[in-house]
């Protein structure tokens, strides 16, 4: 566990840079986490993806299936990789403040 600081944001993250306490997530935290993913600016499309992930996570306690994510946001997988170069699980989920996916993900 380590403390990650970015401008005025100060959060606890694991060795892969995922939030230790997803409850402390807010939009500033998203910006801070995005900076670690090579995403300097969060556009409307980024937010659409992040908000969908967060809503699903709050309802079900896990990220949605990738096919569902693509269908519900209308972004093909390629577009998700354009928005978050590390991909949906390692990139988008991290910025949305979800815990690191485990298992064969």
């Amino acid at each position, binding site marked *: 566990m*380590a403390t990650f600081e970015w401008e005025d944001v100060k959060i606890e993250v694991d*060795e*892969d840079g995922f939030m230790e306490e997803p409850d402390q997530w807010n939009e500033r935290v998203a910006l801070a986490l995005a900076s670690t993913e090579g995403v300097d600016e969060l556009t409307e499309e980024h937010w659409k993806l992040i908000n969908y992930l967060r809503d699903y996570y709050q309802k*079900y*306690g*896990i*990220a*949605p*299936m*990738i*096919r*569902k994510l693509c*269908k519900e946001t209308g972004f093909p997988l390629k577009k998700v990789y354009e928005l978050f170069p590390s991909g949906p*699980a*390692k990139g988008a989920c991290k910025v949305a403040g979800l*815990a690191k*996916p*485990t*298992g*064969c*993900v």
Partner: protein
Amino acid sequence: MRTTRITEEERAKAFAPTRKPEVTERQQLDVRYHVEDFAVEDRPRRFLEAFAAILRHSNYRFALDHFIRMSAKCSRCSTQCQVYQATGDPEDIPCKRSELLLSVYRRHFTLAGSVRGRILGTGHLTDEKIQEMAESFWNCTACRRCSMECPVGIDHALITHLGRYILSEIGIAPRALVVSTREQLEGKTGNTSAVPVPALVDTLEFLEEDMEEEKHVAIKFPIDKEGAEFVFFPAVSDFLMEAESLMGIAAVFTATGDSWTIGTGYFDGINYGLFYSDRILERVVTKVSDETKRLKGEKVLIGECGHASRSAKYFLPVHCGGKDALPVYNIMEYTYQAWKAGKLKLQPNAIPERVTYHDPCNIARQKWILEQPRELLKAICADYVEMTPNREDNICCGGGGGTVSIDEIRPYRTAVGGKAKADQIRATGAKYIVAPCANCKKQLRELVEDQGIDAEIVGLHDLLYKAIIFPDHMIQPAVPADAEDEDNPAAEPVKPDSAGSADE
């Protein structure tokens, strides 16, 4: 196998440190995978205690006694090891790796070895040797090609497995695996990817809707249906990653009409115990057996996953009832049998692109499943090609033995472990690489991305989904686009071969 040595640049990237220096210092352990903090004091003594306890409660002694007598260290295995072929590092020669543990066994657990060691005052286990083992045993992908080549029959992967098991008992195991198995055995969700039951149900309902839209057939995922013939356990990550594989499997069962179910009590085929701990292997495989019995199912059906299939097929009889244990099938065996029996109709040439098949080590090395997927693919693909070598001689994806779940070693996996596989894939020129294994799929996707290969990694059932011909009575009339179409006689049943969506 031709030499596939990596370049200096690739070497630098693959072996770059992944951990903070303070973590290495605190844990007194220099490895590339993350490890949860553990007691660092008196490590050699605790290693030997764990080793002694495992020997006492297992049959490893017979194998080790045989191995130390037979081991000639001839290095024939090095010709087959894709890791050694890539690195050229003598430390990566399989019998050198095995010797790390065999030397500890010889020195501390045989009479001759301990007498000689005491008289000469040499060879005792040190912290440095533990460090060497912690690094070396996780550089191996446990593909077992070396065992095929060994003239005296030494199973190097078994020794690696035992080494990892002992290390895990003193706290040295990749965190990625430990965290996943902890959730599986002690967590709220009870599975490695922490998928809660409501999320599972939501996902399956979503897939059912999609399939109805695409195929105009009511394809269902039966949940908690008691008395089904098959109780299904995919790698649980399939519920997040592999929509098409699951859809294909549900479509096959709908077409054949056989009964199957997914249990909400337990629905994960993954068993990382196979990679690093017999204790965990037993506990996980027991969950599979218990859930099948709870649902009064007849057979255990494992999804597209090599290690999940091997761990259930070979260890369910060991730990859950011997000869009375539930029979275990891999989904490809079922689909093949159903097709051969005429219960499943497939559209020839449904896949026009070039397709090749990657054999997952855990189902191919022992010649368990070799021809079934090939025959199915040849039945639906216009351009099917083989990789060389293949079948029981296949080359590992480079992420075997649990290493694929360790994200921090991805550069190592795709530059070193997967080097030979990348060359093989390139040589086929295939558009689709069929890899019926959750481990292989993840690794190969990362491999083609990092190596810049233009190929798509899919499961067998992803392609079968596009080729299944449903009986006419299952196909529902197309839903009219609007009310005006209600009397339109054109709203006829849509057959899959005429449905545009089938090839999407």
